[in-house]
């Protein structure tokens, strides 16, 4: 049986990642149950001036199709979304996406902090944040916001990370709920999937 306990339903999962996170993300996406219901929103640092190619690269092994949302698009069950190049991706009250070209945060646009913070405000305790390998501190503050709103926080085990600055910064700022390897994150998501199914 699984060691992860869930006591409610969840509205979204946000995954943040930067340098060294690509392999981990691909692994997670390739292991998702086909009928995984909770929307997954990914904010990954990527080349600013390259609009195409990244979704395709992630999609090759992904069980589900990946979409870069348009401004004010509705968030739907069962979907996987990716923040587009050179835009911040925020969640708006009423469950839509909102894009912005404002200044970079921690040298990043999209900024993980912005996605996590806005999502934590909208989804409160019904949000799960996952932060993976990365070379800067973007996302650490956002994880704290999720925790403050009662959501669940997960970071990739720093020892497993190619570059552990990002998860370590989050661990420093917040009492993170679970520090897990990619395989354990997959296990967590599967357990969550089973839990959500029993709710319906």
């Amino acid at each position, binding site marked *: 049986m699984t060691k992860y306990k869930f006591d409610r339903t969840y509205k979204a999962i946000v995954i943040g990642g930067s340098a060294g996170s690509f392999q981990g993300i691909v692994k997670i996406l390739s292991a998702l149950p086909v009928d995984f219901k909770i929307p997954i929103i990914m904010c990954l640092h990527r080349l600013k001036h390259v609009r195409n190619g990244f979704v395709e690269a992630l999609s090759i092994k992904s069980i589900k199709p990946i979409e870069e949302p348009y401004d004010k698009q509705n968030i739907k069950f069962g979907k996987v979304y990716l923040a587009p190049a050179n835009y911040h991706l925020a969640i708006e009250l009423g469950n839509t996406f909102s*894009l912005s070209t404002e200044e970079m945060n921690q040298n990043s646009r999209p900024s993980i902090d912005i996605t996590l913070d806005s999502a934590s405000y909208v989804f409160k305790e019904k949000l799960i944040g996952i932060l993976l390998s990365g070379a800067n501190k973007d996302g650490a503050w956002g994880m704290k916001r999720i925790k403050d709103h009662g959501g669940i926080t997960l970071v990739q085990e720093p020892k497993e990370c190619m570059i552990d600055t990002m998860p370590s910064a989050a661990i420093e700022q917040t009492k993170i709920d679970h520090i897990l390897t990619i395989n354990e994150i997959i296990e967590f998501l599967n357990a969550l999937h089973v839990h959500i199914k029993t709710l319906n």
Partner: protein
Amino acid sequence: MYEIEISDIRKLSEIVKEKYDYDFTNYAISSFKRRIKRVLELYKFKSIAILIDKIKEDSVFFEEFVSEITVNVTEMFRDPSFWRELRDHIIPNILLNHDNISIWHAGCSSGEEVFSMAILLREMNMLHKAKIIATDIDKSIVEKAKKGVYSMKSMDLNTKNYIRFQGEQDLKDYYTVENQKIVMDPTLVEGVSYRVHDLVNGGVFNKFDLILCRNVMIYFNQKLQNMVLKKLHESIFKYSYLIIGSKESLIWCDIASKFIVVNNDEKIYKKIKD
């Protein structure tokens, strides 16, 4: 941490609306909230109440507030593939039926988009045929656009974009460097009319063959997007073009049926119904 409540944001927008002729009530909450937070930090205001009082009392400060609350980040030749499409298809198409071309940059920010257009038209040998109007709500950013002086740092990205646009020259042929600043060739924009104009409260003032309103409506909620799109629709001649940002879409909007998609990747639309 100090939390900004939605009710505070509403209150602020109401007061701005009452006292000044600006209406931010239908700006997208998520980004508007971040902008307010930024203003509080910038001016070291401890609460939104202090900001509201300051706005009530000080109309000079209010202008600064408008300037800070709007997002002015922009680039030359942002989305190079879009500019190629404009050069290779859209503008030739317009000039097939017209001797002249009228263009409106709605939300021009510091003017990089206008210079991109002017360079493109000059390289097509069509600049003299264009009548360009560039507007923005933010008075100080319009002043900056008029000057056409930019930082050296910003030129890195602009140059990369220009190369990917596959322009005919070097971008540096269009500027000089003075005191560590980039000074754009003023003859590029001598025919451009720059104005302060608010898309929300401002009226329809003319009709155009081509409107660029890119990365402006992402700061609005859907209700306001619909309102503003109605005005943009009124400001375009039938069979003329509206272009929005690469991650915006008209599909959900009330007036979607009055446009057809000319190029979905580059978000180029053509008005087909009045």
